[in-house]
């Protein structure tokens, strides 16, 4: 299991990388390599050129200001885990990261790699959807920004054009008191989840739901925000019954199936995890209020 031969390029600047990717035939950017390298070792992917982004310092940063977070594409998962500002403003992301692979893969794996590979069960993708993420792309024609929901166009398919590089992602963390939860079900710790749900919830003074965000991931080809539940829960007192309704929405999503895992089991898990995540988030939201 050795990769097919390729030419190797290790540019120092984004513009160089973009030039290479848009001018070379059958070229692929290499981020942390935790998904791409196995595919190349299996020879499922064979590329004439590999453009290694690991020496582009400009792509590795975490900017946190009051209301927004910007994370450079080559920021490693471990760097995010160790960032106290992220722990403070988006604890849901930290919880998500604890489910991402293992120590050694988080040491190499990057957020940009994850958001380019687009495994439907990827935790950082789910969090990006939950936090109304926007990805920034840079190509030969210039830069553009795309909201996550427009960015994921299908199963492992980003809206990036040929030669266009994901350079960073913006997250919009909630301000003020709110609860959060991140629940997933994987066969073993660190495996890709068979389904998962991430929730943010804020309560008003009366204890009713003021705002809710619910992302279900690993079920269909892309993470999904439960728009109906998010809207209909507002103004309601958080109850098990209310959450079960959101669970119904999750259970009606399109679900992937393969030789090992059925679609109906994924939908079943989506319901269970959505309800559990909502319950946990509502408890946290209440605690925040105290």
């Amino acid at each position, binding site marked *: 299991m050795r990769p097919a031969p390729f030419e190797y390029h290790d540019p120092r600047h984004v513009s160089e990388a973009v030039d290479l990717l848009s001018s070379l035939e059958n070229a692929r950017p290499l981020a942390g390599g935790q998904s791409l390298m196995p595919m190349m070792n299996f020879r499922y992917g064979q590329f004439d050129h590999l453009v290694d982004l690991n020496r582009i310092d400009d792509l590795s940063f975490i900017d946190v200001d009051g209301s927004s977070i910007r994370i450079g594409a080559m920021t490693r998962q471990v760097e995010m885990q160790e960032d106290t500002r992220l722990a403070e403003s988006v604890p849901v992301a930290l919880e998500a990261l604890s489910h991402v692979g293992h120590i050694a893969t988080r040491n190499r794996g990057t957020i940009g790699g994850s958001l380019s590979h687009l495994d439907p069960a990827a935790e950082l993708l789910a969090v990006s959807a939950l936090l109304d993420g926007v990805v920034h792309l840079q190509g030969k024609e210039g830069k553009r920004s795309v909201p996550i929901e427009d960015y994921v166009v299908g199963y492992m398919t980003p809206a990036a054009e040929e030669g266009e590089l994901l350079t960073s992602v913006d997250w919009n963390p909630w301000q003020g008191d709110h609860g959060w939860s991140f629940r997933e079900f994987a066969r073993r710790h660190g495996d890709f989840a068979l389904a998962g749900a991430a929730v943010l919830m804020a309560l008003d003074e009366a204890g009713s739901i003021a705002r809710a965000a619910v992302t279900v991931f690993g079920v269909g080809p892309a993470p999904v925000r439960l728009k109906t539940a998010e809207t209909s829960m507002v103004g309601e007192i958080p109850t098990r019954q209310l959450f079960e309704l959101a669970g119904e929405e999750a259970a009606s999503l399109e679900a992937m199936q393969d030789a090992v895992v059925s679609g109906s*089991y994924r939908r079943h898990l989506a319901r269970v995890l959505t309800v559990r995540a909502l319950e946990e988030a509502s408890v946290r939201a209440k605690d925040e209020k105290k």
Partner: protein
Amino acid sequence: MGAKYFGARVERREDEPLLRGKGQFTDDIVLSDALVAVIVRSPWAHARIDSVDVSEAAGMPGVHSIWTMADLPDCLRGRQTPIQVPNAAIRQPHNFPVLADGEATFVGEPVAVVLADSRELGEDAAQMVFVDGVPLPVAADVGTAAEPGAPLMHSSLKDNIAADLVLQFGEDENPFEAAEVVIEETFRQHRGCCQAMECRAVQAQYDALTDQLTVWSAAQAPHMVKNIIVEMLGHDDGKVRVIAPDVGGGFGPKGMVYPEEVLCAALARETGRPVKWTEDRREHFLSTTQERDQIWTMRVAADRDGRLIAVEGDLVHDSGCAAPWGIILPYIAATTVPGPYVIPNYRMRMRSVFTNKPPTTPLRGAGRPQAVFAMERMMDRLADRLGLDPAEVRRRNMIRPDQMPYRMGLIYRDGSPLTYDSGDYPECQRLALAKADWEGFKQRQSAALAEGRYIGIGVANYVEGTGLGPYEGSKARVAADGRIEIASGAAPQGQGQKTILAQIAADAFGVPMEDVDVRVADTGIVPIGIGTFASRVTVNAGSSTHNASKSLRAKVIKFAALRLEVPEADIEIDSRVVRARGTNRSVTLGELRQFANGMPGFTLPEGLEPGLETADWFSPRQATYCNGTHVAEVEVDADTGAVEIRRYVVAHDSGRLVNPMAVDGQIQGGVAHGIGNALFEHMHYDDEAQPVTTTLADYLLPMAPDVPDVEIVHMETPTPLNPLGVKGAGEGGTIPAAACIVAAVEDALRPFGARFSECPLSPQRIVEVICQSKKVA
């Protein structure tokens, strides 16, 4: 002389080099000028192969040569590899050739070999070898392949039945007719893989000057590898040497002799250059032997007190595309069913069935986990039917210690009447139950249920024939520096045999362990042998090491008495010096060795052979039977189907323990494998026998959070069948684990009335069964 090391938790001498990264595994060995072999494998489960086009690949950079069946030397052409364990009951003794010979019978079957300067270049070329094959109908599933008219695994067969036989005992004519309770059920178990962390690996070197062929292989049975290379290549027996260096786990499948071993040896001889092949993980999934696909239809008759009257069944075993180990697996399975229970009447039909999948050969447990699953699940059903405690039903049926030796009425695989030699099964179960607080569980369970949590408990017993003969040899000698050297036919893959044999030898000879060197796994030091499988090495190689070391001591004493001119009774061995008690006379072992080797002008007394060297070929007259009881306590998340093993208790009796630390390690590791079989490891194939789970991300090995710390209770009933009183301990951790865990899951889900008759149990399956039960309710 009392035992000094036997029974002690001695730290292992194997560990230090391995911990420093100084181990020597097969792939670590550097032979200069070696060619790297890359195997082109069949993408079809079953196909006619019309041609193999190597023209483009042959001209690629770094390619030395490419070999198909047609290019191989005469001795390999048109031949199947010999069946390692032949049996007269095999009606169609089919085995595969070293390269596909016009017909491929499983995905991954070797079709051609590329020899290249590096693995990378070899893989580049292998990609450009074009195999022209015509897909043929596939015998994909063991259940349907057994039926008349099913697609044939290979065109030369008349049907897919490799063997069809019945084992039985008991005098009652129609035991089921009058029985108060009759229970029937069908159980299905699935294939798992070896997944030793080191994949297979071979290196072969041929020296034309001496005609010497040396093969290094990550093998469990280097002597079998040697025998088959000698047989297939027609090479002089004295000029083939097979060495198993450090081996990174075996678990059974490395006891198979593979085409790649024969190919590397043959091509080293053909090309005159060393040939190296290292299996990669994908190849391991495709081509290393697997085990456990079986379908059991069981029928049990009992009286209303739960006492067994008869057990009968029909066992369909998936042999895969060949029968390299004959009918060992179904045979072991059928003889394991009775376990620790008195069964007046027993009848088991077993069919070994060919399918277009990799061959099945023993994998830790070797047919026994399936047998124990079928039998123990039936005991649970019986308990349920009668409203009895599952442990109590088992106790009522157990063979009592005063019935030992207990002759069951079957012939075991070693040809001897299946006779349990020793053990106290009721006491073993009692100890396990006490440790697990079986009595207190009902209370724990209802308390948990009140909180909405589902916990359950399960128990399972097994009896295992271990320490199988025919023999294993060890040589003991005094080396030039006075150290004791043991050369044994043992071939370890992590069990710590060098330490264990050193403990045994040091005690038997009477020196500190540090003065004992142990060499193993090399046909150049002990030319004949059997191999590591069937939990047999400590029994066989341990006993021969003990005997050889004792007779070496006797010989040293004789020569020392002669040399020091005192009666033998006055000789004392004190580390590397031999003294005459009450005198100041002494001789070092090194000097005594020279003396014993003989010198001109000195006459040996009659009956005393020269040299301080002895050998022993311990040959047990039958297998020795170890036994054990497992108890698992689990919690099931009824919403997701997740199973957490809260506690796991093993009470077991493998006779006397040489090194309790090593035995604990075998049990803990064996249970981990059993947890894999119970909950995780399922080698999926599609309807065309294409493998689905071919990465370690898809085929799930249990990881650290999935395996609890096993609580172990040792019983030590010495066997009378060998001088050490030892029984095998390598597989008992695995054998009843799946039965035990599935029983516990079922118990936890009693409120739903869930029933499971298969394993592994995925969370998905658990949820499906719960949902069905809810619907029925």
